[in-house]
């Protein structure tokens, strides 16, 4: 509630201020829609951007450094509509779809069926496909020497995001074996998926250039910070184990934390 009041207050101030201004837009054109491609690094070796801190014994917080981090990207596709409200102020709404992959190396304590003893199994480089849906509203503040929609801007996003993860393999086979049965642990993920949703806020720095008086090309860097997930669903009892669940959810949250984007739109 409080958050909503703050947002409304900020909006009110800027909209009122914009009303008293002469708003040129770009040659009178004040609205544009654009498609935006966001590219973020898909880190196999976690960095400060997607580090998962150990939360319990046996979790496997970081991946290995065996694979290069170059050339492995996650992408997000966004559709934006932006309306210029003031000389240096605009508002936007966007929908983004993230369809990308993530790699997990994690450990999981599993009770041995035969002996009843708990064994820690290690699962390495397990691919998780991640789908995210973002619905965001944005306030865009253009820079000192810019004139909306032309020039450099700072964009503040607020919105809802829903993310779902599913392992590529139906069955995850551990790398380590049980000392009791000398077999590898298997996790059935055929019907398992992870889903979380949360309110989030983000910001971006970018620049719009306009060609042929209609074509908007933009680029920049974007940050999105989901808040603590409101809820998550795990559909399969087989993987309702604490470590993997925590790891996946934590990885879902910050996976689009920083992306570089390039977009193309039409101004009218």
């Amino acid at each position, binding site marked *: 509630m409080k958050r909503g009041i703050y947002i409304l207050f900020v909006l009110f101030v800027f909209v009122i201020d914009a009303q*008293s201004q002469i708003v*040129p837009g*770009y*040659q*009178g054109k004040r609205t544009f829609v654009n498609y935006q491609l966001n590219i973020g690094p898909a880190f196999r070796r976690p960095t400060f951007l997607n580090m998962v801190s150990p939360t319990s014994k046996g979790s496997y917080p970081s991946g290995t450094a065996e694979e290069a981090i170059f050339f492995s990207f996650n992408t997000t596709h966004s559709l934006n509509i932006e309306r210029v409200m003031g000389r240096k102020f605009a508002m936007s709404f966007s929908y983004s779809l993230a369809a990308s992959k993530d790699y997990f190396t994690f450990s999981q304590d599993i009770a041995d069926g035969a002996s009843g003893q708990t064994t820690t199994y290690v699962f390495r480089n397990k691919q998780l496909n991640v789908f995210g849906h973002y619905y965001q509203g944005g306030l865009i503040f253009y820079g000192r*020497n810019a004139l909306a929609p032309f*020039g450099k801007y700072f964009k503040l996003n607020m919105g809802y995001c829903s993310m779902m993860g599913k392992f590529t393999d139906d069955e995850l086979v551990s790398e380590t074996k049980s000392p009791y049965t000398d077999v590898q642990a298997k996790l059935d993920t055929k019907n398992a998926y992870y889903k979380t949703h949360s309110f989030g806020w983000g910001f971006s720095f970018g620049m719009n250039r306009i060609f042929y*008086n209609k074509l908007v090309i933009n*680029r920049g860097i974007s940050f999105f910070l989901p808040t603590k997930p409101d809820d998550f669903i795990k559909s399969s009892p087989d993987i309702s184990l604490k470590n993997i669940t925590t790891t996946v959810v934590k990885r879902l949250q910050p996976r689009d934390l920083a992306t*570089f984007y390039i977009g193309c739109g039409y101004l009218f």
Partner: protein
Amino acid sequence: MIFGIYMKKLSFILGLTGFLSLGVKAQTKQFDSDYTPLMSSGVLPKIYTTSATEKANKDIATVKKEKDYRTKRAKENFYLISNFQMDQLLRSGKIMFNDSLSLFVNKVADEAFKDMPEVRKSLQIFVMKSDIVNAFTADNGIIIVSVGLLAQLDNEAQLAYILCHEASHFIKKHSVDSYVVFNSSSQSSYKRNSLDKYKYSQDAEYEADAEGLKIFKKTKYSYKGISGAFNMLKYSYLPFDEIKFEKKFLEDSSLVFPKNYFLTDTELNPIKVDENYDDSKSTHPNIKKRKDNVSKELGEFSDEGREKFLVNKDQFYNMREMARFELCNIDLQQEEYADCIYESYVLLKKYPNNAYLKKMIGKALFNVAAAKAPKEKDYKPALEPTIDIAGDSYISYDYSSVEGNSQQVYHLLNKLSAPESNILALHYNWKLKQELSDDKQLSQLCDSLFILLALNNETTIAYFNKKSRTEYINETFVKATPAVLDSANTVKVDTVKKTMRSLDELENDDMDSKISRIGTQQVAQEIKASKIVNADSIHYAKLESEFDKYALTDLLRGKDFESKFVRAEEFNKDYRNKKFDNIVQKGTKSTTNVGGVGVDKIIILDPFYIKTDERIRDNYKYYDSEEKLNEYANVLKENAKLANLDAVYIDSHSLNTNDIDTYNDYTLLNDWMSEFMEHGYNRNMMILGNDAAEKMQKKYNTRFVLWSGVYNNRTEKKNVGAAIALTVFSGGLFAPFTIPYLFRKEQQTLYFSVLYDLEQNEILYTNTSVVRLSDSRDFLNAFVYDTMLTIKSKPKQR
């Protein structure tokens, strides 16, 4: 080549006044009552309708066969630079053609080069509105002669020799050769240091003098023209005439300056002469060396059958007189107010009823007062200092180094305080207004002077004495004198009495003699000798110290004058109480938050576009600049149309043969802008050099002028190594930042637009932006449209 820019001062006065008084009588009629400034006429010369790119390419094509690569490059570069720079000069609005001055100069050229038709055909001679005594030649045969030079001439023969000299530079190709020598390493005869350059330049001047003499010999002009030209150059730093500036000129019965406001004859700086000055760091040899050189070349000669005037003597004097009239206006526009007043004064001696000259003095006095007046409180200039298109107005009244009689004017302007300048300007202009009652501009000046006096100088009617100076003298001195008569020496007392009584007769008689008798020191000595110790000397000192308090007393008795002063006082009170928000806000209208300007029609004046590249030797990208200028012209037109703003486009770069009226409008507006910029941010001052406001209003039905331009500068990219290192060592993490940085061109672009109100003499709106981006079309469109829309939109009430 510059013929006479480096002048040294000599120690005696040449009798220029003699030349001036000769032969002028015949054609004085046209100057008797008024004068209209000159304008160009006829068909525009082809050089104006051809782009600089075309001209440069044509010249560059001539050096294609040059075998030596470095020489070829140097020549190409020279033709590029010289063509573009000459083009800029021609389109500066300072050049006149087909006007009375240019036509006469061309007639003299026809006569001088009668036997050299090919040379004459190659020469194009123009006159430049400049007070500098100068003439120079471009390599393509364009000769520019300044108004300042024409005003100093004594006869046609002098002008003919100067033209011969300049034509020799053209024939000998001195400009291009000089450039090639010092910009091509293949030419090793001269080392590239400045002293060698001076030496080379001086050699070229000697050669031009000698070659000019050869051409001159073929003419029928008198050889006296040669020595005359050199003598004229010797004294060119002085005004065109030397006559005593009389104290009484600006005085009347109520306004009498203190004696120390004027220099005595002995205090005036003598005119120094040094013909043989050190010229080691000058592009021109000194006058003596040049005269010796020409004499040597001339050998034995006879002046028989040669004339000082071949075209027409009357026309020459007529032309020179016009140049002198023009010079007054040029000085006014360039804030050379002391020179303007002195030169107008000199001409007024010959044409005492000339309204133009009287107004020149009135205008100069106005702007002196305006420049000295304190700024209004709460004043904020509309033009932010971040765009330094005009520096702060700086007007010098330093009289210490001025020589000759004009020093008197410098001294007077230096002595006058801000309120005193204001009072003098008001006194002079009000009286002139009575004489020229139909003149609207004079009324405007007087109204402004009242405001300046009441508002800026905070002077009220109460400041001025109720008794006039004459009344004070009659009453006080007559009373005081009998009291001391008994003990005084009769003769001395008589002298003093006579002296004192003569003060009230100042306006009727020759003031010089009387003032000399009542001079402070002289009177004090006489009073002391006659044992009149205190009485009258105190009164006299009072008169001196309070001279300004008497200056307007007589005028204040006129109802019209008093009521205007009262109104100004009320205005001052209201202003200080901030009753007039619009006045307090004046000059801050650039804040777009308060809405638009509300103008429906504008004149877009000669935009500029400059592209430079710091990475290349000559920085200036000539071709690109001209190409982008054409594009920018379209951007301006297109966006004005989109904003529904009616715009008239006046541009010196898109002229056709028959666009002479547009060209004249352009020069008029350009002069207005130059003068405006001279004033810097001092909005007290007014544009008085021309009546562009009135003419534009009549012709285009608008008084608003938009001046706009773009400056793009490409610079060296720094931190390239750091960017590469960051990319590699971060394992590509920073690549999205560093790779675009490495590929991006490092440049800055400045856009600015200024909207002037010609009538109100103020900047109405400014729009500036500096971005670290290329000067792309979207950037231009965004800001130009914003400018046009803001100009068109109505102001919003907050």
